[in-house]
């Protein structure tokens, strides 16, 4: 009797906010809102096509001396329409990690919010932070939870970067739609403009970039993505809109101030205008 009730208490003890929601309020989980096969059924592959929804695109992340950096453009598109010029796709996940999202914006924003609460919840319940690998695995589990919705066309692909305090290095993780987690070296990019940004990163990135150089490389890679991908927005001097850039280092995650980004973006625009090149 004692044995079983003790087992029960241990089995019910969870530090995971997602698990708690799954048990007590499953309807609040972003990926439980639409049931798999709501239209076509799970066996038929694609269900009813989901009406057009805003999509978030290019995210770039790269390592520099002492940390990692993540940057995202500001455009959301719905088919051939620009749904938003102000959307933010890079978020602090907790004090030492950041998260960027590409894919269906509505679902991605909810998963981001859930992930932020998940990390904070663990920290409050346990009195200590989750390890960086632990955080990366939790995010993978959430993306896997979203797989039924991804099958209906509502895919979310995140990019995760954090400072590993145990080893004292910045680390970078990419994911596939099944929640598969892959550690990346040097740099990585996701979203529809990612192939162009990746090309730029290959040429511009080098080991031991300083933080200021890394910001410039990230903004330039996004500029290249925006140049060739219609779903990625470039720096917008008319509206004074610049990419969202976060750095993560030993001191924690910090957003790069608008003023600094305005300077960096302005310098890139000037340099390209002066070069008078076509492509």
């Amino acid at each position, binding site marked *: 009797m004692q044995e079983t009730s003790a087992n029960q208490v241990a089995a019910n003890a969870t530090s995971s906010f997602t698990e708690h*929601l799954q048990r*007590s*309020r499953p309807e*609040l989980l972003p990926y439980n809102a639409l049931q798999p096969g709501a239209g076509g059924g799970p066996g038929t592959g694609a269900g009813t096509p989901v009406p057009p929804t805003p999509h978030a695109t290019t995210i770039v992340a790269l390592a520099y001396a002492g940390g990692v950096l993540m940057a995202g453009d500001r455009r959301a598109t719905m088919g051939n329409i620009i749904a938003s010029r102000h959307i933010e796709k890079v978020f602090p996940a907790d004090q030492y990690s950041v998260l960027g999202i590409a894919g269906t914006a509505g679902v991605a924003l909810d998963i981001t*919010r*859930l992930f932020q609460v998940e990390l*904070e*919840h663990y920290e*409050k319940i346990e*009195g200590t932070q989750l390890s960086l690998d632990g955080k990366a695995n939790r995010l993978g589990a959430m993306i896997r939870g979203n797989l039924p919705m991804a099958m209906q066309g509502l895919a979310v692909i995140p990019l995760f970067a954090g400072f590993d305090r145990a080893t004292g290095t910045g680390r970078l993780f990419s994911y596939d739609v099944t929640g598969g987690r892959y550690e990346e070296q040097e740099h990585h990019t996701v979203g529809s403009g990612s192939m162009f940004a990746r090309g730029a990163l290959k040429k511009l990135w080098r080991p031991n970039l300083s933080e200021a150089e890394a910001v410039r490389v990230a903004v330039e890679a996004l500029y290249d993505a925006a140049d060739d991908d219609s779903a990625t927005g470039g720096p917008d001097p008319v509206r004074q809109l610049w990419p969202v850039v976060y750095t993560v280092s030993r001191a924690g995650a910090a957003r790069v101030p608008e003023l600094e980004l305005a300077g960096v973006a302005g310098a890139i625009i000037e340099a390209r205008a002066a070069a008078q090149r076509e492509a």
Partner: protein
Amino acid sequence: MTQQFYVSPEQLMKDRADFARKGIARGRSVVVISCRDGIALVAENPSPSLHKIGEIYDKIAFAAVGKYNEFESLRQAGVRYADVRGYSYDREDVTARGLASVYAQSLGAVFTAEQKPFEVELAVAEVGPGPKTDHLYRLTFDGSIADEQEFIVMGGQADKVSEAVADGWRGDLDFAGAVRLALAGLVADKETATLPVSAVEVAVLDRGSESSRGTRRAFRRLDDADVAALLAEES
């Protein structure tokens, strides 16, 4: 079948209350003080890892005296309540008042319906933009709830500690002053004049966490070195 002895409800409740009071009076005290810089929470607690003070949400902290397993389960339930509420509505919709009334209901239900009442006393503190907007709620084992001003003292010998704190309380205290006052209160019933830094647990709710630290989470736990540094500051 044996007949149960009749016990009047008055007697039953009185016995339960006495039982809970005895359990709480054995514990060491906790002091929660509202001051200029925010809210300081100070507990006499020699363990560096088993906390009596905890973070619940952005502006809300929790302090407890009594049985560890009982208040720890209440703390975790509070974190879950706050996180679910903040996630399903919005972060600003999580308030100390809502949390305190949930605690009051669960404590009341346990007091009347369970085998034994919880031997705990809780404080729920929420820091506001100014000292007038701070909320301090005290919850006792039977589910009664009190909205307190300025400070809360709970635990064994609470009267003596409370007297000492009341004597020294001023609205313009900073964190150093509030922690000093709390420590002075905590030794009021003892032979010694000071408590070693390692025997106390200190946390604060920062009034200006957004501007000073860039985070909406106002709760900050101070380790021994932080407390020593804080106390070394000129008053």
